[in-house]
């Protein structure tokens, strides 16, 4: 296990994330005895939960935390012993194993990081991104936690259906609107409170500002040397983006992050001192070994852009009807993503703030981010995010851009092999170096 290490963060703001995003990291303080607590999946609108003043926690994020703290294996094994296949998502197995163990002990498992998760009174799922997410809370509720479950279920048009066709737009937004309305009705029943539209409007306004700041940061990352690498993105941007969208402190955090990145660009400060290679990162990161990015950095490579948790360009929305604004934002983002080629991305119409970039956008990034290649993490237990890497590799090859695909997992460290993977990375760097030399001679 000693080969697994935590990321060395480059940015001061990211180093201060836990302090600046205190209400997330001190989530125990959010829980109230006997009051509702939701477990949520990415894809659920944080703004809506904020508007209900409903405390919420995220099993997927807990999976990344357990992975980083090297306890995910324990929980995954527990789930496997209960009959859940090792093929299944390691976030899911981690969560199921955690719950199974908590039920067995009648208490929070002592090895659970951060004091574990709060006991939920409802499960809020989402049909976007992948199949296991629609089945996960079903299995959790039927086997361990008999509490109410609600899934939002928006759909996205396939790559060859034009979302700008008004009939298509009406077809998809009607489902989106209805599923969000059903979710509101569910939350009103579960919390005994009416949706506070003023609070939702404020949260959406905050989210709009945060998304604009993130877009600015992503644009700044084009600079050479790269001011912010994937290690800082994954450790510093994912939590506020996925789980705190709409909360004032998350917006403020992103403002500080933007300021720091902008300052670095102005001063020509990069993540690593001698930047020789710039790579696209594709796939989920190995959360139990984010130090991998530093290890690759020590070889002169930096990752200025990632395909996961991609937010894209901000879209304008009319906040006069905040619920409709949520629908409008989701659909406009889905349309923007779709415009860039959606043949291998998962469903991208989601009330949350992120998706995956289209194929043509990735080809465009080669120029925008001056990429020398792509490094792709094929995660055995997350086919939804890994699927399409071979296609993207083919697409990049048409641009003369090489790619490395290596295999492991996002939360289950049993599939990580440091020597094999670093050997593959070194070999890839050698090939990239040779091709750069050849290009320079030509």
């Amino acid at each position, binding site marked *: 296990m000693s080969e697994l290490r935590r990321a060395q963060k480059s940015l001061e703001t990211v180093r201060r994330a836990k302090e600046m995003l205190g209400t997330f990291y001190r989530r125990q303080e959010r829980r109230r005895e006997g009051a509702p607590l939701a477990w949520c999946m990415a894809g659920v609108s944080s703004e809506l939960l904020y508007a209900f003043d409903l405390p919420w926690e995220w099993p997927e994020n807990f999976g990344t935390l357990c992975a980083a703290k090297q306890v995910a294996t324990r929980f995954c094994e527990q789930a496997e012993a*209960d*009959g*859940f*296949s090792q*093929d*299944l*998502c390691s976030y899911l197995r981690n969560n199921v194993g955690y719950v199974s163990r908590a039920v067995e002990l009648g208490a929070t498992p002592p090895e659970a990081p951060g004091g574990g998760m709060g006991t939920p009174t409802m499960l809020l799922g989402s*049909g976007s991104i*992948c*199949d*296991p997410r*629609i*089945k*996960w*809370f*079903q*299995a959790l*509720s*039927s*086997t361990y936690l*008999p509490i109410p*479950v609600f*899934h939002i*279920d928006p*759909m*996205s*048009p*396939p*790559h*060859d*259906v034009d979302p700008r066709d008004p*009939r298509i737009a009406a*077809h998809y937004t*009607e*489902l989106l609107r*209805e*599923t969000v309305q*059903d979710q509101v009705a569910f939350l009103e029943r579960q919390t005994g409170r009416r949706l506070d539209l003023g609070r939702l409007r404020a949260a959406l306004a905050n989210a709009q500002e945060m998304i604009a700041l993130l877009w600015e940061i992503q644009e700044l990352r084009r600079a050479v040397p790269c001011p912010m690498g994937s290690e800082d993105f994954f450790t510093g941007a994912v939590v506020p983006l996925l789980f705190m969208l709409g909360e004032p402190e998350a917006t403020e955090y992103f403002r500080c992050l933007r300021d720091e990145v902008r300052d670095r660009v102005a001063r020509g400060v990069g993540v690593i001192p001698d930047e020789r290679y710039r790579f696209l990162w594709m796939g989920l990161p190995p959360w139990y070994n984010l130090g991998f990015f530093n290890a690759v950095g020590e070889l002169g490579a930096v990752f200025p852009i990632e395909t996961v948790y991609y937010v894209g360009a901000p879209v304008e929305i009319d906040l006069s009807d905040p619920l409709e604004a949520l629908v409008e934002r989701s659909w406009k983002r889905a349309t923007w993503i779709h415009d860039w080629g*959606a*043949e*291998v991305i*998962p*469903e991208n119409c989601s009330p949350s703030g992120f998706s995956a970039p289209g194929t043509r956008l990735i080809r465009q990034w080669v120029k925008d981010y001056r990429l020398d290649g792509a490094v792709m993490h*094929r995660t*055995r237990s997350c*086919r*939804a995010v*890994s*699927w*399409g*890497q*071979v*296609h993207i590799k*083919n697409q990049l090859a048409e641009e003369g851009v090489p790619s490395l695909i290596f295999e492991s997992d996002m939360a289950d460290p049993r599939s990580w092999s440091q020597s094999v993977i670093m050997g593959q990375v070194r070999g890839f760097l050698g090939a990239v170096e040779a091709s750069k030399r050849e290009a320079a001679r030509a």
Partner: protein
Amino acid sequence: MALTGLARARALYEARDDRARELKAQGKRIVGYLCYFAPPEILEAAGLVPYRIRGDIRERVTDADQYVEPYGCPFVRNTFDQAVKGRYDFLDGVVMAHSCDSVQRMYGIWTHYRPAAFTHMVNVPHTVTPASERFFHRELGLFKERVEAFAGAPIDDRALEASIALYNRTRELVWELYQLRKSNPPLISGAEMLEVLIAGGGLPAAEFEELLREVTAEVTSRPDGPGAKRARLLFYGCINDDVTLIRLIEETSAHVVMDDTCIGARSFLGRVTNGGDPLAGFVRYYFTGFQCPRTYRGTDRSRFDYLIHAARQFQAQGVVLYMLSFCDPHKLDLVDVRRYLEDAGLPSLVLEDDYTLTNLESMRTRIQAFVEMVA
């Protein structure tokens, strides 16, 4: 002499695309479909020939690896591998449905690398709600329009009603054949039944109807049907479009008397409501009532009541749970379904496979032990 009945079914099963190629040579347009959410009745009513895309469990996936990941539904990868190798070059169109991640994502890859004259994906929500039913109804309307545009003419209401009636007749005939599996020994074996159903996937519905009538006549009159065996089993799980495994079970002295798979009871039992709004009938049959685990139907284990009912109806003593690698929907139901079966007094055996059946001998041993236990 032309083959009839079970012999014809076997020949069609073995030479899976011969009839489709013949029809193609006669000027018919053939539309392949993966999974069962896009109603073939609509294709047939438009004068097209629906063809259920199969994998080939005996063919190793090789060429597809240039375009898709190794981790993914092995059945879907196998079908695409065959498309890459040109085995589906007789298809004028390809229709897929958002039945699961694998098919949804394969649609983009397939249409990118192997474009066809007509391609379409029917989107399917994950949960059964009034809103999702309305969405699926609209989605089927869009599918019908695309089919009409490809066929070059609107689908006449009467033609659609006739197509639904024809498909319903085939379902009734399939159900009649299933009823013949209730006796002990059954009059038709599980392997024979699967051959008939797979053969039907490559035929126009009228020809399938004729085949079913021949098979029914044959099995009800033959003196030498399946002999006595030690146990009666229900076969549940992932897609199984090859009879090898069912044959293996039946060689191991157990009848496969009922199934819950998508080339089986899930697709062929019940009927589409005809008359009135045909799309509403399709919504009920292909979405609301279609028992694919990819659809969320609440958390109560009573969602598997239909399975217990089927086991009781066909006097199954145990259930084989067939799981393909990376099938998230089925594998996430597995814990629940096993416990529910156990509570109902039905033992179960999990058989895992990667759509190669390379571990047949170890499966044989496990099946033998299971049969010993339930017999």
